[in-house]
């Protein structure tokens, strides 16, 4: 197990490097650089421009610039935000907890929907419950997150006036009241993400259950007189969940995409809305930093998927 873990950990390093290469190449290929505006400015003499470009290494070959950037990233020097006027890593560190909280809560909600509904559907395939649940799941993952977000705002903020539609960080209340407001303003973003994920996972859970429920050992369990409940919960669910666990971890990139949209709709101050703001305002260091954080999170969850898979399924050999 320990060696398996180490091997997986080592395999994550080249993927991170690969992603950093892709990221850097994209930015290097893009037309224009931070100093391209300077060339248009007649009050800066050409010699000064040349000196500045040389100082920041803009005319070095691409690979040299890449290693420079990589070294700086590894040292924790992520650059300085043009707009917010603080270090990028500080800025990101402020924003990451909010994103993780919203994503975490929505994943819990998604699992709370997907597990019971998927298991119950698969236990009675093609029953009325199953048909309605499957159709609703289909509708759920065909609804784009930006549209569900607007619909929820329309219903719960504008028509019913129950929930605030702008996420605020400067809540005046303290103690329990603060928690109450915090929960109230988080409900909609969490619902949007959670319902979408819940819908697609319901389908995964159901089909994984149906794959297992036909196997011979389940028939054996039934024929030795176990109650149906015990057969489903103890024998089927445990094995059916193995592929689902991996899928949950592997859909993380998609979840982060959804989180960007949701944060933008509800103005949640997480790294997703930070990324959009940075893109709209040409804040390149922040863009690089946030994308890299997203990449790290994705790789981290892939690693977790591998490890969980190895741990849950003893048939996987730890090589």
């Amino acid at each position: 197990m320990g060696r398996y873990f180490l091997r997986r950990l080592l395999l994550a390093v080249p993927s991170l490097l690969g992603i950093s290469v892709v990221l850097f190449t994209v930015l290097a290929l893009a037309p224009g650089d931070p100093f391209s505006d300077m060339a248009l400015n007649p009050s800066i003499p050409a010699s000064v421009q040349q000196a500045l470009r040389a100082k920041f290494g803009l005319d070095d070959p691409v690979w040299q610039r890449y290693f420079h950037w990589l070294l700086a990233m590894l040292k924790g020097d992520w650059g300085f935000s043009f707009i917010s006027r603080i270090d990028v890593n500080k800025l990101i560190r402020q924003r990451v907890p909010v994103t993780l909280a919203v994503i975490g809560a929505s994943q819990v909600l998604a699992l709370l929907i997907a597990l019971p509904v998927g298991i119950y559907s698969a236990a009675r395939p093609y029953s009325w419950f199953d048909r309605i649940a499957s159709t609703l799941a289909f509708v759920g993952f065909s609804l784009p997150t930006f549209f569900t977000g607007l619909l929820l705002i329309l219903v719960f903020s504008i028509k019913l006036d129950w929930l605030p539609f702008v996420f605020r960080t400067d809540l005046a209340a303290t103690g329990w009241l603060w928690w109450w407001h915090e929960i109230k303003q988080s409900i909609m973003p969490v619902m949007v993400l959670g319902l979408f994920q819940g819908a697609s996972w319901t389908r995964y859970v159901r089909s994984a259950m149906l794959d297992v429920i036909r196997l011979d050992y389940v028939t054996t369990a039934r024929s030795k007189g176990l109650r149906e409940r015990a057969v489903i919960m103890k024998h089927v669910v445990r094995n059916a969940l193995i592929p689902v666990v991996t899928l949950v971890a592997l859909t993380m990139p998609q979840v982060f995409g959804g989180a960007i949209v949701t944060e933008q709709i509800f103005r949640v101050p997480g790294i997703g809305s930070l990324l959009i703001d940075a893109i709209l305002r040409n804040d390149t260091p922040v863009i690089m930093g946030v994308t890299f954080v997203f990449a790290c999170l994705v790789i981290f969850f892939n690693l977790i998927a591998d490890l969980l898979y190895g741990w849950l399924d003893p048939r996987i050999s730890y090589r």
Partner: protein
Amino acid sequence: MRSVSPAAETWRRFLRHKLAVAGLLVLVVMVLMVAFGPFLWRLSINDIDFTARLKTPTLAHPLGTDDLGQDIFARMLYGGRISLAVGLAAMLMAMIVGVTVGAVAGISRGPVDAALMWLTDLFLSLPQLPLLLILIYLFREALKAAFGPEIGVFILIVVVIGCFRWMPVARLVRAQFFSLREKEFVEAARALGASVPRQVVRHILPNSLGPVIVAGTIDVAAAIIAESTLSFLGLGFPPDIPTWGRILFDSKEYLDIAPHWALFPGTAIFLAVLCINFVGDGLRDALDPRKVL
């Protein structure tokens, strides 16, 4: 026994899936509307009329008007063309790249296969939406200058979305190739002296297309969502090209006084995606030979 061509058999099986048939019908209606609608509904998409701002649906404007008094129905008909075209074109892009990579990896063993699969895995673990946003932000101006605003953004969005969706197809094709290339009929072709490209194009590829078609259908829906997401974030098409996502983006500030403005394009996206997903589901059942229908 009457002989039935594979296509006719698939069609018969597809017709068994009621929701898929309904989805296909709705889709056909939508495509006809965006294809011919602008010729029949002659209101211009950018006629500004300040006397008719933010009107709820009436006979003159069946889907109401926006903040400049422009007819939303006309804008949706026109924008729908682009939304659906982006979906189709991006799917084709993803299919071409995916089938090529999958076929090359599937037929060649050893290092080529390993390298291509490493690339596929790398692309799968990229954070897609952030990269999409960055690519569009970086290359939008250059392509706009090269091809004009409409075509430039269209090419960019199609290529970028296509480049992020080919990986599942490549994996599918590769897996199919692995099992098919050992089958007797391929061996027979090989024994008859068929070259490798001929084996691939004439014998292996046509037999591996079933799952690819299903994946392609679902990809159209995913590409439509991706395009509307980009437009919704303000990073897709410019305001004078009213794709459904773009109309939603423009409408969200007026949600409290003109909800109809957001509801119609949102519903259109949702309906298109839902119907495509249903059709994909129907095709999956129809093309799966193990499933008795």
